[in-house]
């Protein structure tokens, strides 16, 4: 074809095109104007008008518009030429394409072109499908097996319609080829028209995207998974790009931080506190090396400003080129975990502190070995804390109990038990153990609390003893005791309660006492209602009742009067008592004797008045000093003698007397002894005191303990008797006796001496009557001597100044000696002496010479009154604690009157021998006094004409106290200088016996 022809054809086409445009415009304008008219409007600017207006303003644009319209027409012309010419050639080319699927169809989709590439990929041959199969047959997408088989004709129609409506139709899908393989195809379908725009067919061009689709599928699946994880993960997942802006923000992150996804995407993360670096900044080096960092504990900020502890894991993300494109950050809320950990730590710490602070030993053992213990445990057993670790728990009990403990641990015993523990040093003590199982370090273990109960044991023991003691005390009380509960029922009672109420302990507990049927009365005899009993009152009011007198009357029995105390027992904080203790004493006898007591009191009062009068009338000064050394009373004479009033001393300490006494009597030990009572300990004493101020006086004082009828001590009584006058008389008498002794004895000495010389022939032979007369002189001189001696003895005895020794005396020997003394006289008268001694006589304590004097006097008396040829019978025998001596004569005997006087001084029985009897008349009175001074008795019995018998009884051990025998006590060493008692003490030192010599 030539260029010109082409241009020609182009011109034709342009003309046609212009004509069509003009026609369309004319039509459009007509329609437009018609519409304006129909709307009732003025025909205005039409399309063309505006168009022309536009061109008229810009004349050049019209030229362009015209050119473009002509150019377009030319292009359409040229394209049509080319298609016509290259059609066959193109078909061959397409047919040969091996890499590309090219499928041509007719207007109904039936294949008329099937390229090599299509054959290879789809597995069908061109000949096989051409004219037979539609494009849908070979390219249908794979349905799922469960899907209904695709309606291919419908699919084909839809497909072709779509391709015609909006060419080209691009699709990518998966289908099954002839070999049954899944393949992916990307295909573009376009309709093909001929020159006059008639549809002549479709052409589909595609290529194999099987690999890409598979990859995409895999990616899609992974992505779905990741998306699911991302959306549903319980942890916050955030991604940030290289510039730190948030790219992903999952729901968990929303929940965790309160920011919605749309609020944070594309922003710097709002959760990183300003003062903290991001995780990426922190671990940049590691992250960029490709490491994943995990478990970074940081704090993040919530939308509401609160802080949240999170644990972060982070990793870098890379793009396809391997460059770092951002970071993914996983955040886990660890607030709870931290709190739980903190609580656990705290709990552990608390337990540890508790265990350390505990006095109880705490020990944890695993498999019987100690893995944990507190200090108290170690201390309890005497170990260092480190030292107990690893030891067997059985080392801490006594070996004999170890098996028992092992069994308890084995059985995981949870009941507390007591056992005997062993310290490091081997000593043992009682403990209480409470064990529990627990998990320790993931393994089974046992924790045990060990408490030292040795104190408790001791306390229990003490309590038990204490209870026993109180029980004993309760039982030993004379008071009745009842413990009653709030209902009055007896919980405990003692023996006295049973005795007083005459109810056995069983009867007491059977019903609240007193039993039904018993009546109770008041002191005035009226009824004593039960609800007014002290027990009831104490229980009702909570107040104690004291000393309530109540009569208890069992049916048909006498009244028992008791005095009752009731004391309630209240628990702290409780208003009413729980129990009541009732104590009572039996006052029946007291009640009965009250009247008698009143009488006795009145009588005693009378007696006291009388006694007081007597005491006051006494010539002796009397002073009663009590046990506590206070003056109890004194009599009127005392106040007179010592110039002191009763008020001054009664009730005062006896010491107030000391000063006065010292002034009056001088600072003598005797004075002090008298006041403080040291000389009257338990027995009476008697002494002389010389008053030196204000006048010289002498007192005889008695100090004697005062005891009641039942030997209770009331103190001591001091009696002062003024003996000044007595003592003066006594001294005169003594002086008189001395004078008499001297003045009578001196001449007697001469008389006796010279007579003796003559009778002994010292001055020549004395014969006949000379000798008789000289004998008479001598006898009378002897008689006078005896009389003087007897008179002196009587004088001494009567003045109480006779000295008595206290020595063991052999009475038998004394009697025999006395008999020998008078043997000459009895022999002279032909009298017989019979001695009868029982079993050997025991020694008697006494003064030998004085007892000798007694026997001499009695034997002499018997001899004198026994007629010549008569008999004197002397017997002696022991009778219990006495020795009894009887001296019996066969004399004329004594009348009753004579017997009554026989011991009187100067008495002589009248009888025919009276004239012959030469005696002083003092022998028997002296004998009686001496016997009595020995604590013995002498008596006489006689029958006229048959003789007389004297009976002497002497105690083996005469009482010493109070008797004048105490004159025989050892003398003071310097009696002369002390001047006390005028030297009446004796000492058994005389080589001769003065008493005997006196009567020789």
């Amino acid at each position, binding site marked *: 074809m030539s260029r010109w022809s082409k241009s020609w054809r182009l011109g034709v086409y342009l003309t046609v095109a212009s004509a069509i445009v003009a026609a369309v415009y004319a039509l459009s304008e007509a329609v437009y104007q018609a519409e304006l008219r129909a709307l009732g409007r003025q025909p205005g600017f039409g399309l063309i008008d505006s168009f022309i207006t536009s061109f008229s303003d810009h004349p050049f644009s019209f030229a362009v518009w015209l050119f473009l319209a002509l150019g377009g027409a030319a292009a359409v012309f040229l394209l049509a030429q080319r298609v016509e010419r290259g059609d066959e050639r193109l078909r061959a080319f397409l047919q040969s394409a091996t890499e590309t699927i090219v499928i041509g169809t007719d207007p109904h989709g039936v294949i008329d072109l099937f390229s090599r590439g299509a054959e290879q990929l789809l597995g069908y041959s061109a000949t096989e499908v051409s004219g037979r199969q539609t494009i849908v047959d070979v390219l249908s997408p794979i349905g799922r097996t469960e899907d209904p088989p695709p309606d291919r004709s419908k699919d084909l129609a839809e497909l072709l319609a779509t391709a015609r409506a909006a060419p080209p139709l691009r699709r990518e899908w998966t289908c099954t080829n002839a070999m049954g393989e899944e393949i992916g195809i990307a295909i573009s379908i376009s309709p093909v028209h001929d020159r006059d725009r008639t549809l002549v067919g479709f052409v589909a061009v595609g290529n194999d995207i099987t690999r890409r689709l598979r990859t995409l599928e895999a990616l899609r699946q992974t992505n779905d998974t990741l998306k699911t994880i991302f959306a549903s993960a319980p942890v916050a997942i955030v991604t940030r790009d290289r510039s730190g802006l948030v790219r992903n923000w999952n729901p968990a992150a929303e929940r965790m931080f309160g920011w919605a996804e749309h609020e944070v995407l594309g922003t710097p993360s709002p959760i990183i506190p300003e003062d903290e670096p991001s995780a990426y900044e922190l671990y940049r080096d590691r992250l960029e090396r490709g490491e994943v960092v995990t478990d970074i504990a940081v704090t993040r900020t919530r939308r509401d400003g609160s802080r949240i502890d999170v644990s972060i894991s982070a990793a870098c993300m890379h793009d396809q080129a391997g460059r770092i494109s951002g970071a993914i950050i996983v955040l886990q809320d660890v607030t709870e975990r931290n709190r739980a950990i903190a609580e656990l730590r705290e709990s552990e710490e608390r337990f540890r502190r508790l265990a350390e602070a505990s006095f109880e030993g705490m020990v944890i053992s695993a498999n019987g070995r100690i893995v944990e213990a507190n200090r108290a445990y170690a201390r309890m057993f005497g170990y260092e804390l480190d030292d107990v670790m690893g030891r067997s728990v059985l080392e801490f009990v006594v070996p004999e109990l170890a098996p028992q403990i092992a069994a308890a641990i084995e059985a995981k015993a949870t009941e507390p038990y007591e056992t005997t523990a062993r310290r490091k040093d081997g000593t043992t003590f009682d403990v209480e153990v409470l064990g529990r199982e627990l998990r320790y370090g993931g393994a089974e273990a046992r924790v045990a609390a060990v408490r030292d109960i040795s104190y408790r044991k001791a306390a229990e023991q003490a309590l038990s003893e204490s209870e026993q003691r109180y029980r004993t005390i309760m039982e030993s009380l004379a008071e009745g005791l009842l413990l009653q509960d709030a209902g009055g029922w007896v919980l405990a009672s003692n023996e006295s309660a049973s005795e007083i109420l005459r109810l056995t302990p069983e009867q007491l507990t059977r019903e609240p006492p007193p039993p039904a049927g018993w009546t109770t009365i008041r002191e005035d005899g009226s009824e004593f209602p039960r609800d007014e009993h002290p027990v009831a009152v104490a229980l009702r009011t909570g107040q104690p009742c004291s000393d309530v007198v109540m009569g208890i009357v069992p049916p048909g029995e006498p009244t028992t009067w008791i005095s009752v105390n009731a004391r309630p027992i209240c628990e702290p904080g409780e208003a009413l008592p729980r129990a009541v203790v009732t104590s009572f004493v039996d006052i029946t006898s007291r009640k009965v004797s009250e009247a008698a007591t009143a009488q006795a009191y009145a009588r005693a009062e009378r007696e006291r008045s009388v006694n007081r009068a007597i005491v006051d009338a006494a010539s002796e000064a009397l002073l009663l000093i009590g046990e506590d050394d206070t003056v109890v009373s004194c009599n009127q004479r005392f106040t007179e003698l010592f110039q002191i009033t009763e008020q001054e001393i009664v009730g005062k300490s006896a010491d107030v007397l000391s000063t006065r006494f010292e002034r009056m009597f001088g600072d003598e030990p005797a004075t002090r002894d008298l006041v403080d009572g040291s000389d009257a300990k338990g027995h009476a004493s008697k002494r002389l005191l010389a008053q030196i101020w204000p006048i010289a006086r002498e007192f005889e004082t008695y100090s004697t303990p005062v005891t009641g009828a039942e030997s209770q001590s009331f103190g001591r009584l001091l009696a002062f008797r003024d003996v000044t006058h007595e003592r003066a008389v006594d001294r005169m008498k003594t002086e008189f006796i*001395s004078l008499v*002794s*001297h*003045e*009578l*004895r*001196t001449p*007697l*000495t*001469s*008389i*006796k*001496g*010279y007579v*003796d*010389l003559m009778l*002994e022939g*010292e001055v020549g032979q004395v014969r006949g009557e000379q000798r008789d007369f000289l004998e008479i002189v001598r006898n009378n*001189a002897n008689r006078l*001597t005896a009389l003087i*001696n007897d008179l*002196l003895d009587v004088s*001494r005895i009567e003045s109480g100044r006779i*000295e008595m020794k206290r020595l063991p005396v052999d009475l038998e020997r004394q009697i025999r000696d006395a008999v020998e003394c008078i043997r000459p006289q009895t022999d002279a008268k032909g009298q017989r002496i019979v001695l009868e001694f029982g079993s050997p006589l025991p020694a008697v304590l006494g003064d030998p010479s004085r007892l000798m004097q007694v026997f001499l006097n009695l034997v002499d008396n018997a001899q004198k009154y026994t007629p010549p040829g008569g008999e004197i019978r002397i017997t002696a025998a022991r009778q219990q604690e006495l020795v009894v001596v009887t001296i019996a004569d066969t004399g004329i005997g004594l009348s009753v009157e004579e017997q009554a006087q026989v011991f009187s001084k100067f008495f002589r029985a009248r009888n025919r021998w009276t004239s012959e009897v030469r005696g002083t008349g003092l022998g028997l009175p002296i004998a009686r006094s001496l016997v009595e001074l020995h604590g013995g008795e002498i008596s006489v019995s006689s029958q006229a004409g048959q003789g007389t018998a004297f009976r002497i009884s002497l105690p083996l051990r005469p009482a010493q106290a109070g008797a004048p025998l105490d004159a025989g006590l050892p003398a003071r060493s310097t009696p*002369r200088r002390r001047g006390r008692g*005028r*030297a*009446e*003490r*004796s*000492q058994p*030192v*005389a*080589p*001769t016996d*003065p*008493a005997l*010599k*006196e009567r*020789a």
Partner: protein
Amino acid sequence: MSGRIVVADDEADIRRLIVFTLERRGYSILEAAAGDAALDLIRRESPDVAVLDVMMPGLSGIEVAEALSSDPTTAAIPIVLLSAKGQVAEVQEGLRSGARIYLIKPFTPQELAERVAEVLAERGNPSN
């Protein structure tokens, strides 16, 4: 029997009785009628025995005896006291003065002679 004896008694009758009795038994006697005279005599003569009455004018027999006992040159001379005082205390006082014998009046000449003989025998045989 020999020996020199001082006899002191203010009662001439009794002194004579004593002197007579003792001279009859062969003793040589020196007499004194008062206590102080007796003391001088005894100190001068150093007799074998002194027989002294207690109740004498001037020094009593007891005072003479005490003086003799307390003097070493005369302490060895045995003394026999004669007295009408026969109470125990009086006897004891006499014996405490250093006298060997206290003879209560009335005594018999025989008794006195025996006592003096005893004293002289003891003196001749001190071991007794």
